[in-house]
């Protein structure tokens, strides 16, 4: 389905929030392949995802990990996304983006089981 990294790179451009947005209609099997990659990455990155969530829970004692993640997240959004879009502005707004980041990390952390692919698919369809 995704023979090489270039195919994945092209599929990323289907995101309407990106600067390099291309209106290719993503196919269902490509969408499912991206979900599978995301789940596998979540399994691999679960210890990091967990630490970021934990850092936010006791921000007064352990704020380094959360602050570092938040900073890198904002830098990445500014670099790759269309910052004129209202939705992207919401992602960059420090007062509003906490909830979006935490919920996204929670979704990823709930989908690391064998049935994680099906779970993530359901979450995305429900959005």
């Amino acid at each position, binding site marked *: 389905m995704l023979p090489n990294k270039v195919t994945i790179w092209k599929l990323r451009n289907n995101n309407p929030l990106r600067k390099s947005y291309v209106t290719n*209609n993503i196919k*269902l099997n490509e969408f499912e392949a991206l979900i599978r990659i995301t789940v596998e990455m979540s399994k691999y990155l679960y*210890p990091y*995802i*967990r*630490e970021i*969530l*934990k850092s*936010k*829970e*006791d921000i007064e004692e352990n704020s380094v990990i959360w602050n570092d993640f938040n900073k890198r997240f904002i830098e990445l959004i500014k670099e790759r996304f269309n910052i004129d879009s209202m939705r992207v502005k919401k992602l960059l707004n420090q007062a509003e983006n*906490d*909830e979006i980041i*935490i*919920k996204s*990390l*929670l*979704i990823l*952390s*709930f989908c*690391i*089981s*064998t*049935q*994680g692919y*099906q*779970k993530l*698919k*359901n*979450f995305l*369809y*429900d959005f």
Partner: protein
Amino acid sequence: MQNKLSFHQSSASLEIIGLPDYSNNENKDKISIISQWKLSIVDKPLIEGKIEHLVPIMNAFYIYSNLLIKNEIPIYESNLIDIKADNLHIHNIVLKSSKPNVKPLVLKIGNSLLSDTINCFDQLNESPKVRIKKTDITTNIPKKLNFGFNKKVKFFNFFIPPFIAICSLILFSSSLIYFYSPFENIEKKEQINPE
């Protein structure tokens, strides 16, 4: 001799103790008749209960986590367990005892412990060694509805661009009518051909 199976995820671990169903010719290492279960979370009191409590508690966690993610009010209440969100990071769990005069157990867990617990329950659900009434809360999706939505999007993608093009053409050409005066043209023709 009872079988014991443990499911671990970072700071949470779930222990299931029980016996195989020999009447169904099951393997010795399987558990079909659960006699005891224990959920231990680091720095929190041990949670244990009867077999009939395990599935409702698992369902409570699954329903609550779904509500939490779907931007709905994250509150789950039942006669066995209440889960409420104190804020975005802390979840308040109240486990009510079925025995009289026993105070409910109150736990406060963060997002990291919540995801550890959910993952322990997932491991139990997916384990081929334990036979338990499976929790399908997160795997049930109205497929027809979702794929119907996809078709609707495709339909709009197909028809909207030509529709907008036709509308803009009509609007543009209707504005040109102000530059066209049929009486002026007739007068000009009369001047050219005075006969």
